[in-house]
């Protein structure tokens, strides 16, 4: 996967780095810059800003960006988490770089396979299959031979699902820019009131993108020594803990 043109143009002005995104990626890969030092949240906001300036969304480039930033985030969180996956514990930065490359290659493999599948579908689409009920005499036979095969409760539970109103929180259809700065403020405010808080309890009601940017804000606060977090298991609850000075009233 080559770096898409949209990404090559993305200029960043971070505390530890100023320059284009692909250069950032390169020097991180070459370990000239510690990933821990990079505020990935700022990278995301810069990208979101450049998107709104251009006023149009190149899906290809956006997907690529998400893929790269997700890989970087994962690498970074592995570097930051005190108790990483035992398999990954002690993963050298070189290995992490290899992981990133392996990830990009794996994705590219399925992307190529998908193009092949699409052409197979095109080739097979002109063949149409018959869909008709059996003639009455055969239908009769089939009915007479039939014995119970299904539990009727699957019907009432399906109706039950349909009678359950959808969750209120849904992905907005139109991408909206979420300000990282505002999420940082929200997080600071929450931490000013309490020394520790449960992420889901405090932010679980927000839209998914807002939650994601809040996590980026948390990374930023961690980088500045204002907060840390605790997560016992993958996908388990996240407890955010105020740390250091600079964050409101001491506990």
């Amino acid at each position, binding site marked *: 996967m080559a770096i898409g043109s949209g990404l090559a143009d993305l200029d960043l002005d971070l505390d530890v780095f100023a320059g284009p995104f692909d250069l950032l990626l390169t020097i991180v890969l070459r370990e000239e810059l510690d990933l821990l030092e990079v505020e990935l949240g700022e990278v995301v906001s810069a990208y979101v800003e450049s998107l709104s300036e251009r006023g149009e969304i190149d899906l290809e480039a956006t997907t690529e960006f998400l893929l790269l930033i997700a890989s970087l985030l994962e690498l970074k969180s592995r570097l930051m988490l005190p108790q990483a996956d035992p398999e990954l514990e002690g993963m050298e930065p070189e290995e992490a770089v290899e992981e990133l490359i392996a990830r990009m290659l794996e994705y590219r493999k399925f992307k190529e396979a998908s193009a092949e599948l699409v052409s197979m579908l095109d080739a097979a689409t002109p063949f*149409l299959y018959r869909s008709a009920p059996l003639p009455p005499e055969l239908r009769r*036979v089939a009915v007479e031979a039939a014995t119970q095969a299904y539990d009727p409760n699957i*019907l009432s539970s399906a109706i039950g699902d349909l009678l359950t109103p959808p969750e209120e929180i849904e992905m907005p259809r139109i991408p909206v820019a979420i300000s990282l700065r505002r999420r940082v403020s929200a997080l600071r405010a929450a931490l000013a009131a309490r020394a520790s808080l449960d992420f889901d309890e405090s932010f679980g009601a927000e839209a998914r993108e807002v939650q994601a940017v809040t996590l980026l804000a948390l990374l930023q606060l961690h980088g500045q020594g204002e907060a840390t977090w605790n997560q016992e298991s993958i996908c388990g609850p996240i407890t955010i803990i105020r740390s250091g000075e600079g964050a409101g009233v001491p506990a």
Partner: protein
Amino acid sequence: MSLPDPQPAESPDRPSDLSADLEALLFLAPSPVSVAELAEACEADEAEVETALAELEGRLGDSRRGVVLRRVAGGVALASAPESEDAARRLLARPRTPPLTKAQAETLAIVAYLQPVSRPEIARIRGVSSESAVASLGERGLIEESGKSRFGAVLYRTSELFERLFGLESLDQLPDPAQFDPDPSDERALRERLLSIGEQRVGS
């Protein structure tokens, strides 16, 4: 498969393209088709269709074949040859009962509780087009067509096979949706509630 030798179109052995198209259309059609409908679909005139149908009929009737052409009220249809009925019974007497997917179970439940119901209505309740689920339930004989709505949409109801496969003596024995609905005795209330929640699902 090798390509056939090119033959002049007028060769009596070579099916005309129009009779081949008619064979395809009658093969696919679930019910008899009129000559006018065939002519429109093939962009041919009715006299040409009649000639090509005669050709197809001759070709199919020529020797013992698996399908025969039938002229019935309302048009023309293909049917399986009566000689093959015993074999067909042996193959098709056992209904296929693979587990229902979530989409199929939801679609079947809507048809069962609200019948007769149209496909657009099913789609509104589920919040997604339900074409593939309706088609596979129809193929398996669990639902069947039951006339048309006043807007011309095909209506569906459950079949007798459905009752057998779910061990129901009648539709009254469907499990009570009372646990989910305040007024289960009223089918109209159930329908309205399903539709309004379906709209929320799409709107969100």
